[in-house]
């Protein structure tokens, strides 16, 4: 137990900060994922074959390739890509992006592919009559989306989004390979300096279980809130 003491003698405060980091990366990645989903869901549902193709390529490639490979792509290629864009604007210095940005972007793109599938499924399972009724009532396209489609879609999407959240939370453990100090990385450091890997990795497992358990409780509440009236 003294291994977990707060302060200089133990690893308690370090692991606590690492847990906050895991939560921060997961939330950032989830939000980035929503931005991607907001772009690619309409593409997947579009009438135009070409836009469909772009949307499908995104979800198929990201969901078919290991997460670790995507993270390596961003870790090794991220700053190169940014520097390339910057050089177009005439900036030629070396740019290094930090591990948090690379990590949450990589995980965000992965989580976005899963969110896209969830939103697509939810929109497709909304009754066709709802779209028609909205049109007949003379709602503008924008209002149709925000007042009628989105609220209904959210209710249908929340149970599946909670799965996406669980996947995202667990995927953040992979960013430890880039050196970002989250639960996994901190356990690795602690295990290395105390030579007690069994304890620290088991403790990491407990932390992840705690996070998944608490977030399930929270999401269940949301689910109840959004299914009012059904």
């Amino acid at each position, binding site marked *: 137990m003294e291994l977990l003491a707060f302060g200089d003698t133990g690893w308690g405060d370090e692991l606590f900060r690492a847990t906050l980091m895991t939560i921060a990366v997961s939330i950032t990645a989830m939000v980035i994922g929503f931005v991607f989903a907001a772009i690619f869901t309409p593409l997947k549902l579009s009438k135009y074959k070409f836009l469909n193709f772009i949307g499908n390529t995104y979800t198929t490639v990201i969901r078919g390739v290991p997460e670790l490979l995507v993270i390596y792509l961003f870790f090794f290629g991220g700053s190169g890509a940014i520097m390339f864009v910057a050089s177009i604007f005439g900036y030629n210095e070396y740019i290094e992006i930090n591990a948090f940005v690379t990590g949450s972007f990589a995980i965000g793109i992965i989580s976005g592919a899963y969110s896209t599938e969830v939103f697509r499924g939810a929109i497709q399972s909304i009754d066709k009559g709802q779209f028609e009724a909205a049109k007949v009532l003379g709602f503008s396209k924008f209002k149709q989306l925000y007042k009628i489609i989105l609220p209904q879609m959210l209710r249908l999407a929340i149970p599946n989004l909670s799965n996406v959240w669980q996947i995202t939370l667990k995927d953040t453990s992979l960013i430890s390979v880039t050196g970002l100090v989250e639960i996994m990385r901190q356990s690795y450091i602690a295990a290395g300096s105390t030579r007690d890997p*069994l304890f620290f990795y088991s403790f990491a497992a407990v932390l992840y279980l705690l996070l998944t358990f608490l977030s399930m409780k929270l999401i269940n509440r949301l689910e109840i809130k959004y299914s009012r009236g059904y």
Partner: protein
Amino acid sequence: MDFDLMINSFPKLLNATIVTLKLLSVSLIIGLFIGLFFAVLRLNKNIFINKFAYGYSYIFRGTPLLVQIFIIYFGLGQIESVRSSFLWVVLKEPYWCAIIAFALNTGAYTSEILRSAFQTIKPGIIEAGKSLGISKKEIFYKIQIPIAIRQSLPAYGNEIILMLKGTSLASTVTLMDLTGVAKYIISTTFKPIEVFIVAGGIYLFITFLIHNLIGFLEKKYNY
């Protein structure tokens, strides 16, 4: 785009694919038995057995696969009694540690898939078997299991693909699988995009094959 690098790295990556496929197939076979075992335990009426099986699947589904591999590879070797026992022959090899972790992980997911498949079997089918005088054991092996396997094919197909992606974590315990070799080539050449296209393409191709195989099996065993 460095096409020469893509062509040169292709045979190396293809060689590494064999390691990936080996890891995948061995852990899937072991995982299937673990999954079946725990699915049967989940159907048991005894609360303790039931809770034990639920706890197993909850823990393995609630923690990242990376943690599981690290506990088995780095953690277990720390225990003195493990190191002096016959288990050490297996546990000192990263290859077997990875397989144990993958098998236990996929076993947890498989047990959930099979359990829900068992539960969707209509009770009338089992009653029909009983009234025909078939023994309980035979009902389980000849009626329940075949139906459950057919029911769980689509979900199990997804699990195979998830496991294929999971095998990439073997590279974190020094195994040179497809992702491990890809990372090695990236870190020596600093051409991440080219290598990603080739390695990702191989993964997508395997995913495509698995998807079609499952689709074929689903059609074949349709009723």
